[in-house]
């Protein structure tokens, strides 16, 4: 299933946050969206997943999602959004219950996604017992459980420390290599974007417009540190964003 954004414009109480965004995300590829803080990246992701309605423009699905897909557009949130009163298994079962999956079938799916995210030993743990990295793994497992046609990742690694970030990045790459998923990955971290994205869309500061879409041909799992092309892309991204980020940093917040 491909996703297309057609001329999306959005306002918050009269203030334009996104202007004329058009993007195409082909199935099985990851699009990274980078931009300075407050450029509307997260808003754009909420629009794509249908959590908010754009003022103008459309988000379009092309083609049908796979038949066993329970929730075509599935989020992974920066703050994990796990229910603290449910165990790891309970949190995953939450998103299956409403699709009528209970009992043995649900148990099978839960055990499968826990195994894929190396969480098999933690099924009975409560969220408060887990580290940030483990919580995000649970959130990823929960997203995998509904077999999404597209994963919408909203700064999934931003709340984690540098080492955990590295580990989870490797996990994400391995998951994609095993079963390529369509992904939209919002981040402010340029090296994450260069590691993971088939293409990278750079947004300007508010109101967010698309400055440039850069494609990288090397498949994400084959990218190695020190690759000249990757370094070049990252330097180019930074040159695009540097002044924007500086201006965004010095803006007064009057929201």
């Amino acid at each position, binding site marked *: 299933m491909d996703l297309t954004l057609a001329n999306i414009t959005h306002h918050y109480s009269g203030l334009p946050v996104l202007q004329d965004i058009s993007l195409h995300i082909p199935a099985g590829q990851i699009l990274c969206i980078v931009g300075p803080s407050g450029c509307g990246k997260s808003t754009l992701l909420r629009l794509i*997943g249908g*959590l908010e309605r754009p003022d103008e423009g459309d988000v379009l699905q092309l083609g049908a999602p796979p038949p066993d897909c329970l929730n075509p557009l599935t989020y992974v949130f920066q703050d994990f*959004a796990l229910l*603290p*009163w*449910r165990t790891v298994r309970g949190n995953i079962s939450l998103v299956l*219950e*409403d699709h009528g999956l209970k009992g043995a079938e649900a148990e099978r799916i839960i055990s499968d996604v826990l195994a894929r995210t190396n969480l098999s030993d933690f099924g009975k743990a409560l969220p*408060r017992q887990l580290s940030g990295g483990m919580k995000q793994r649970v959130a990823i497992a*929960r997203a995998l459980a509904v077999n999404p046609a597209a994963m919408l990742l909203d700064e999934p690694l931003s709340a984690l420390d540098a080492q955990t970030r590295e580990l989870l990045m490797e996990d994400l790459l391995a998951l994609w290599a095993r079963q390529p998923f369509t992904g939209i990955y919002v981040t402010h971290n340029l090296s994450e974007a260069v590691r993971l994205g088939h293409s990278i869309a750079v947004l300007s500061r508010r109101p967010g417009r698309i400055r440039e879409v850069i494609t990288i041909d090397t498949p994400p799992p084959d990218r190695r540190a020190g690759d000249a092309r990757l370094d070049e892309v990252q330097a180019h991204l930074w040159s695009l964003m540097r002044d924007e980020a500086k201006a965004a940093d010095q803006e007064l917040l009057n929201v």
Partner: protein
Amino acid sequence: MSDATLPDTATPRPVPFRGGGFRPVAKRGVGLAVFVVLLLVIEWGTRAGWIGNLTLPRPSDVGAALVELYQSGMLWTHLGPSLARLAVGSLLGISAGIGVGVLIGLFSYIRAGLVPLVAALFPIPKIALLPLFVIWFGIDEGSKYALIALGTFTPTVVSTYGAVDNVDRALVRMGQSFGLGWWSIVRKIILPGALPGILSGLRVSLAIGIILLVAAEMLGAEHGIGAYVLQAGSLYDLERLFAGVVILSALGVVTSWVIGLVEKRLLRWRG
């Protein structure tokens, strides 16, 4: 510049400790000790005569009055009806309060319509309405149930909709993003998320319930702790008056303890 004012750079000195404090630490038995010391001082004062016997009763006499109350079998005659009234009245008030509070938390129209009404009801001294309740619900148990129910209703409503408002909206958004139905979100995300706030609101509601129980029993009840206290008070029988007060205190401690148990059981996930 003399050398004497310069610090001695040769010998190493430990860094002075400046942290610590400003953090409550559990101290076992201190509460009980304060209680015991207070009682002993009063006992001593009343025996030595520097506390007049019209000012305070002797704690040992209050204890004797309690024992006598128990041995005569009158304790249950008074406590039984009181407990029944508290249970029925607060059960009615609390369940209606939680229901209305959740509805206010979920629906904007109900919130707009009922929050001003609840704000208007809350500060009314419910005891002032007792004569009205007697006419509406009769002099028997009905008016007492109604008084306790209304008294526990308003604080429960306020704490419940506050608790619903405080449920993390990120969790609700997560539920919507996974296509959970409205009822599922309410049942599996809003209600468990609001439970801590609802339970801590119940502590306040039940304390108010006990206060109103006594007030109701002071007007037209043959048996009940309130009636017992009123009777003792009008005879200026300080020992029995205080025995009644001790029972009410104990009732408050027990309800608070029960809620603590429920919290420990239902909110185990908070750790």
